[in-house]
């Protein structure tokens, strides 16, 4: 069964890092360009994220993510470059399309922001197992019920995907058309989704009874099966990241004068 999580265990130093440290990195990577307000900060942080991804040996998994966001960025470039309201200076023209400097600059800013967010999140997503994140959240006082919600999504989804395949085959064999014009495809949606949804909902009843029987609703403090080894790097990296954020704030205030 295929998991929806993109996490891969490469045994790298990023895998061993505490999830919170990586979350702090996301905050830093997104925060610094927004606080600093300079365009050149984006490429700098995008470079940082890329280096981290390479060092964690996960660059190959990142490429599809970037590919997906590229279409969005291209659309933004087209629309802003052609139609932005501040457009005055003509930059270049392709045929009858005129691209303006102001719009392109604005689009660059947005595009960099998207890429920066995407890559900093990729650092977290590709190196942190959801299970570990949930465990750490619970250890710092998060409700175990919400921990269950997150964990259970990962168990339920592969099951639902299997049901989905069965139902698609079953309905097709009964002569349901799933290809054709828009109306045909719209009509196919309900017969496909409703059996899956129904079975998913009826399963919740059994699942809740099973959980209740095993003491899910108990209020007592729970214990953990595995203990997480502590690392010295965590503290060092956290301090560096916080210092970086504070330094940007100070720099911005000084440069405003």
């Amino acid at each position, binding site marked *: 069964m295929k998991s929806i999580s993109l996490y891969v265990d490469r045994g790298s130093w990023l895998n061993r890092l505490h999830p919170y440290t990586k979350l702090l990195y996301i905050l830093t990577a997104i925060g610094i360009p927004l606080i600093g307000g300079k365009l050149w900060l984006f490429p700098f942080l995008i470079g940082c994220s890329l280096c981290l991804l390479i060092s964690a040996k996960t660059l190959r998994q990142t490429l599809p993510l970037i590919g997906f966001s590229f279409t969005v960025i291209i659309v933004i470039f087209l629309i802003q470059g052609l139609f932005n309201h501040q457009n005055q200076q003509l930059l270049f023209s392709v045929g009858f399309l005129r691209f303006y400097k102001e719009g392109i600059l604005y689009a660059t800013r947005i595009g960099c922001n998207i890429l920066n967010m995407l890559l900093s999140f990729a650092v977290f997503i590709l190196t942190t197992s959801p299970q570990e994140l949930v465990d750490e959240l619970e250890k710092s006082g998060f409700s175990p019920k919400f921990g269950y919600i997150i964990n259970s999504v990962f168990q*339920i989804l592969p099951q639902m995907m299997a049901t*989905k395949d069965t139902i698609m085959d079953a309905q097709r064999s009964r002569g349901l058309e799933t290809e054709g014009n828009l109306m045909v495809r719209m009509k196919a*949606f309900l017969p496909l989704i409703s059996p899956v949804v129904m079975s998913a*909902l009826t399963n919740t009843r059994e699942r809740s009874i099973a959980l209740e029987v095993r003491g899910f609703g108990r209020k007592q403090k729970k214990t953990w099966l595995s203990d997480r080894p502590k690392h010295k790097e965590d503290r060092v990296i956290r301090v560096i990241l916080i210092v970086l954020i504070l330094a940007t704030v100070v720099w911005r205030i000084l440069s405003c004068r």
Partner: protein
Amino acid sequence: MKTIFKTKLNTATIVLIPACIGINYLGKLFASLLKLPLWLDSIGTCIGACLGGPIIGAICGAANNLIYGLTTGDNITLIYALTSLGIGFVVGILARLGFMTSFPKALICACGGGIAAVVISTPLNILFWGGTTGNFWGDALFAATQAAGMPVAVGSLLDELVVDVPDKLLTLIIVYLILKGLPKKLTALYDANAKIERLD
């Protein structure tokens, strides 16, 4: 007022939330498999909202985007956690007010959910994407309004409106049909106003 927000946070509702999140994912998957120009990724949120009330709906919506954003790398959805939260909340309130009891009323409920989505998404779109939504038809309209010299906010609002309202209409029609087919012994689990009768 009290009955609208009344929420049972027992095991049954906790189990409902991941199921709804899974349904959201499936809706999106089927929509892309059938190449429909809509998202249809809030079916589960709406089911959660109709069964469990506004609070469960809001939790379903927010948890949905947070989980997918933090695990599948689709972190664009992360920003729209607020939108999903709003949809779940509004649909939940309307469902508790009795707007899911008949088909025409369900359509009103869908419009409510759609408007909630538009109102919350538009500022996010402008802030993060300069106004586009990532849906082909919506963005074509946005480009047209920008070419006509309309303000970005109006263009973006229209962009969201053409995509989100039909999307929520179809979503809630599906939800209405599904909920009508659910057995009573299941829906009774989530009924916050249900009372246990004692025979002694």
